[in-house]
């Protein structure tokens, strides 16, 4: 068997490169000790290859394998699931490198490497990871090629491998489009499927939103049909918090219904919302969503809810009416909850509220007076406010006077309630940034915001944003404009980083497209697409047939192409063909039976003003083609350049 031959250093070199490229992106997900172990095993093998040393004894390899197995068992406390599995495979692949002695061993390692490239997608499916996996696949395929033909030049092998992969591309697309889709993350085990999702939670304590303010992660994207609403109307509703225990805010009583509790009116905005998974049911719709949105429900506090927590990136086609009046008629329970305050907290604020209540004649006046008083307190808006004690509202209003939106909202709602006006905190996102590359509105975690709603007789729930008192620009221009210069800001929010922001915008546009078209291609969209292609209600048999037919068709196309290309591999032929094509555009194509010199003579007669170059080219070609041996590459390039530069009138 030829497979028992010892591999050449070049073949081993390719394999090492392939394995390194495959495992490098895994390094961040692997336990650190395992990553170091794999790296050192690869380094040892490379050193052995470089110095032509002998690989270590079989026993050593077995011992390392056992030790790594025990380590993995300790790290993950079991052997099942994707994390311990990938970890074990990674270390086994590195050990396989050490014990490989024949080309057959190399083939086994190649297969493992392919599998681990697939394994990259267990963790995330960004375009970056796809590119890294592709690079790994390219190197691994090159390794396979080098096992077949050790003598070929490395560049040629890389090129062949790239050609092979690109030939696989149409098949990949067909499989992607037609292979039956499975709902839900295929590789995720329930325990580790939804960890690490960030976003708003349904409790708010001082500091919980300013924490999000430091994150550049994207919360969702919205693509508007037509112009998006102005920044001051971009309030994306999340949890509505009514219950207050003196420190944290929690959601209060709310109904859930199939219909909203309001009549949408005013100008409508249509948009498509692509929500990043946050493992919560609320959809962060723009206030206030229309009545007929499929697969959603409407909460009594005007949130739009999905049927299940959003665990995958999901798209919703929504319509909102920001000018709608809501909650003119409100439940007594809701109003009662919206006035309740814990006893014995924030005495100074209570005193202030009482003062305002006696001064103002009705809820509207009290509201206006409260806002005026707050403005008079000269509060500062900052991402890093000082820590607050038990009487957090008192301390914020009268001592530290520095706060983030949750402090403002919380203090304002406290004052209103203490003055006898129903009020509640609304959390969500405010603003967002238009990506100039694709025009979509990108809302990041740092756009998280808290504002207030006050219930006024006859008007219902009215939105009041107390943050605007201290930092009006927060609402109009976003976080960075509102914060004082000395404040900590996420890198991308800082002004003066325009080029970086531009880069980020571009990357966002790419990954948005990727999300929409690659990751967002779920069973529904597959069905839609097939229906549009004329296959209503496709079952697996239809899909299998479609797959078979398309694969066979592609195969035939590729074969035909390969046949047509066979002769064109020769650069001299390619140059000559392009010459003939060029002249064909001037009505002087070469007859198939015509020899180069005859052709040149005919051309010289047809185009007397170009006789000289035309004759030279055909003579050069004739000499290069029909002299003995392969044509000198330099002369061929020279001829090709002459042909390219040839310009006919």
């Amino acid at each position, binding site marked *: 068997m030829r497979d028992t031959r010892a591999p050449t250093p070049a073949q081993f070199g390719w394999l090492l490169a392939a394995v390194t490229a495959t495992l490098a992106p895994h390094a961040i997900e692997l336990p650190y000790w395992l990553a170091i172990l794999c790296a050192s095993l690869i380094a040892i093998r490379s050193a052995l290859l470089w110095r032509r040393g002998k690989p270590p004894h079989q026993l050593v390899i077995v011992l390392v394998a056992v030790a790594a197995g025990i380590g993995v068992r300790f790290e993950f406390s079991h052997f099942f699931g994707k994390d311990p599995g990938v970890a074990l495979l990674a270390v086994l692949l590195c050990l396989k490198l050490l014990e490989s002695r024949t080309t057959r061993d190399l083939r086994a390692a190649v297969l493992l490497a392919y599998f681990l490239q697939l394994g990259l997608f267990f963790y995330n499916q960004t375009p970056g990871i796809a590119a890294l996996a592709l690079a790994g696949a390219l190197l691994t395929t090159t390794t396979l090629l080098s096992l077949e033909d050790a003598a070929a030049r490395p560049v040629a092998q890389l090129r062949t491998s790239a050609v092979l992969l690109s030939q696989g591309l149409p098949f990949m697309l067909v499989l992607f489009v037609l292979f039956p889709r499975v709902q839900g993350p295929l590789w995720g085990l329930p325990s580790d499927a939804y960890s690490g999702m960030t976003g708003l939670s349904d409790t708010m304590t001082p500091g919980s939103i300013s924490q999000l303010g430091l994150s550049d992660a994207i919360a969702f994207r919205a693509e508007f049909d037509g112009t998006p609403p102005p920044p001051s109307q971009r309030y994306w509703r999340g949890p509505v918090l009514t219950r207050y225990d003196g420190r944290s805010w929690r959601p209060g009583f709310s109904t859930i219904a199939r219909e909203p509790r309001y009549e949408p009116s005013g100008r409508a905005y249509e948009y498509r919302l692509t929500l990043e998974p946050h493992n919560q049911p609320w959809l962060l719709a723009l206030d206030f969503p229309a009545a007929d949105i499929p697969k959603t429900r409407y909460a009594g506090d005007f949130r739009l809810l999905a049927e299940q927590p959003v665990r995958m990136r999901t798209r919703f086609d929504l319509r909102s009416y920001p000018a709608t009046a809501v909650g003119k008629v409100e439940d007594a329970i809701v109003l009662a909850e919206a006035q309740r305050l814990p006893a014995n907290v924030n005495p100074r604020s209570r005193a202030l509220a009482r003062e305002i209540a006696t001064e103002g004649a009705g809820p509207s006046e009290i509201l206006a007076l409260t806002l005026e008083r707050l403005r008079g307190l000269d509060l500062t808006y900052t991402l890093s406010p000082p820590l607050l004690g038990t009487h957090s509202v008192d301390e914020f209003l009268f001592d530290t006077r520095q706060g983030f939106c949750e402090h403002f909202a919380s203090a304002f709602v406290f004052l209103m309630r203490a003055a006898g006006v129903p009020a509640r905190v609304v959390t969500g996102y405010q603003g967002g940034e238009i990506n100039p590359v694709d025009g979509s509105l990108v809302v990041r975690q740092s756009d998280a915001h808290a504002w207030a709603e006050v219930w006024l007789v006859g008007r219902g729930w009215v939105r009041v944003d107390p943050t605007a008192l201290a930092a009006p620009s927060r609402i109009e221009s976003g976080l960075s404009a509102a914060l004082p210069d000395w404040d900590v800001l996420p890198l991308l929010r800082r002004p003066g980083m325009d080029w970086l922001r531009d880069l980020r915008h571009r990357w966002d546009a790419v990954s948005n497209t990727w999300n929409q078209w690659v990751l967002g291609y779920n069973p529904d969209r597959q069905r839609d697409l097939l229906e549009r292609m004329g296959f209503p209600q496709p079952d697996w048999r239809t899909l299998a047939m479609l797959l078979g037919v398309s694969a066979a068709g592609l195969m035939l196309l590729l074969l035909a192409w390969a046949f047509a290309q066979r002769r064109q591999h020769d650069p001299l032929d390619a140059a000559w063909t392009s010459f003939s094509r060029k002249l064909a555009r001037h009505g002087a194509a070469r007859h198939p039976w015509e020899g180069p010199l*005859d052709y040149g003579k005919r051309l010289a007669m047809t185009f007397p003003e170009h006789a000289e170059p035309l004759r030279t080219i055909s003579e050069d070609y004739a000499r290069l083609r029909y002299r003995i041996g392969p044509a000198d590459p330099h002369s061929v390039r020279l001829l090709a350049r002459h042909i390219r530069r040839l310009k006919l009138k």
Partner: protein
Amino acid sequence: MPHRYAIRVLEAANCIILGKDRELRLALACLIARGHLLIEDLPGVGKTTLAHVIARLIGLHFQRIQFTSDLLPADIVGVSIFDREASSFRFHPGPIFSQLILADEINRATPKTQSALLEAMEERQVTADSETHPLPEPFFVIATQNPSHQIGTFPLPESQLDRFLLRIRLGYPDRSAERALLMGEDRRELLERQPAVIQPDALLAMQQAAHAITVSERLVDYVQALLATTRHSPELAAGLSPRAGLGLIAAARAWALIEGRDHVLPEDIQTVFPHVAAHRLHTAGDGRSVTPEALGQLVRDVPVV
């Protein structure tokens, strides 16, 4: 420089035979390719003169054999006659022991006599009375043939025609060439005065040089495609033989040498192809020889790659 020799011969020959440059080149190519030439034409168009001119210019020993219906093989190759003094048979070489033979009107002789000549042409030696006599070097036969429909002829069989590398037709001269011929000196006198322009060993040098001319893989591809087309053509009784293929390449090499190239191009093949193929191919239906037009079409069916 072998190419220069060829040019020198052609320049001189063109002064004597007017307006026949292409035919002269083909005749010379045939000589350089060590083949034998068949000229098929009406009497009086200059077949004999052409043979004379070539012999004269290269300084070859020339013999003309007029073929008649009563010509015997011995009249060509020679006879062994008993020598009384030596008490043994002595071989008296026939006219074939010359460097250039003009076999005039070869189709007037009987097949037996024809085959004696053709055997000698092929083997370049003569066997008489179990003794082998090598023919001189170079050895070149120019056979002329009247168009076969003339009365009293024995058309050469196909197998014999294959011995000739090229067949050319001289045809009538064009108007200006004929005028110059009519007004000019007597060709024979002109020929008498014409000295040799090269020596026979220059011809040998040309023959060797032609043999060294490059035939690339791609050109062989083309030749094979051409041969295959003759073999698959429904209009032809049979295709070209491998010998014809060899002849095609040999003639193309000689042509390339005359053109001053060190490699053969498809154009060279195309130039010699009708002359190599015409006398070896016959149409499928009536067995007549193929027309130049049919051959031209055949060449057009084969792409140059």
